[in-house]
């Protein structure tokens, strides 16, 4: 039941390839932990998509494994890279999910349905804070999560964030 802020970790704004700062769902600059390799996540997504193209079962398993990196405390859980919850990275954590999903060829409905299913379980266990605005379609997801997922997917879809060609 204890969480400790870990604000000693550096935070830098998430920027697109033109250097524009990405705004999170809360209208403020989305911050990422200093040194975190966003391009690496996109590259992994692209690789998972390719793998599913020629080896569907292996590719699907790999995709599931990589999605597991977003689990609480996982290596892509930006909010807990320091080991403790860090509120600076709430928005970017979900933006990153959208970026991975888009690059991995996972549709908006698929990624939001997966998130929704997990949230449904959590909802049964401890509910949400009173007054949390919820999405009308993915009813176990706060609007903030859906908006941030969309922001991440759009960044990759539009080419605003893309990894350089080798």
């Amino acid at each position, binding site marked *: *039941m*204890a*969480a*400790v*802020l870990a604000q000693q970790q550096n935070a830098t704004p998430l920027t697109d390839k033109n250097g524009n700062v990405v705004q999170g769902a*809360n209208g*403020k600059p989305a*911050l990422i932990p200093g040194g975190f390799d966003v391009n690496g996540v996109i590259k992994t997504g692209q690789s998972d998509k390719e793998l*599913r193209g020629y080896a*569907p079962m292996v590719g*699907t*398993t790999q*995709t*599931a*494994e990589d*999605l*597991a990196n*977003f*689990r*609480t*405390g*996982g290596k892509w859980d930006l*909010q807990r890279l320091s080991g403790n*919850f860090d*509120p*600076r990275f*709430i928005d970017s*954590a*979900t933006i990153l*999910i959208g970026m991975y999903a888009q690059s991995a060829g996972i549709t908006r409905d*698929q990624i939001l*349905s*997966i*998130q929704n*299913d*997990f*949230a449904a*379980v*959590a*909802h049964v*266990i*401890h*509910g*949400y*804070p*009173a*007054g*949390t*605005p919820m999405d009308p379609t993915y009813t176990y*997801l*706060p609007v*903030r*999560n859906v908006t941030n997922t969309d922001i991440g997917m759009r960044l990759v879809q539009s080419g605003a964030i893309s990894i350089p060609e080798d």
Partner: protein
Amino acid sequence: MKKRTKVILISSLAMLGLMVAISAYWFWGRNKLEIQVQATKKSPDGKWTAVVQMEVYSAAAFVDEAVYSVRLKGPAQKDRLGDLVMNMPVNYPDPAPSIDWSDGKLVVVLANHEKYQYLANPVDGVPIVVQQK
């Protein structure tokens, strides 16, 4: 429906199902509520302690909802976390609400642009005053 469309549809559904099943297996035990107490103020009559705490509702993967909660704790509290007065979304770098007691009322102060998403007034017979500065 064409055979190719059927195959794509079935593959997509199988992929979704497999991802959910594997992930659910891995993540089931990770749902939790994290709490960090930010401030406490005991009422002058000693009946209640007002607290501001950051509450992080984690859904094991993908979803975290974090709020600053103002709660009243004391022997008569009905909620194990403390009786809820206010929830405000955590939006870094906005500060947490501050609290004080004045004339038997709990005064909650928010920064000028901050908005709460839930407010109860009164709570346990304690009137709540919200100020924005």
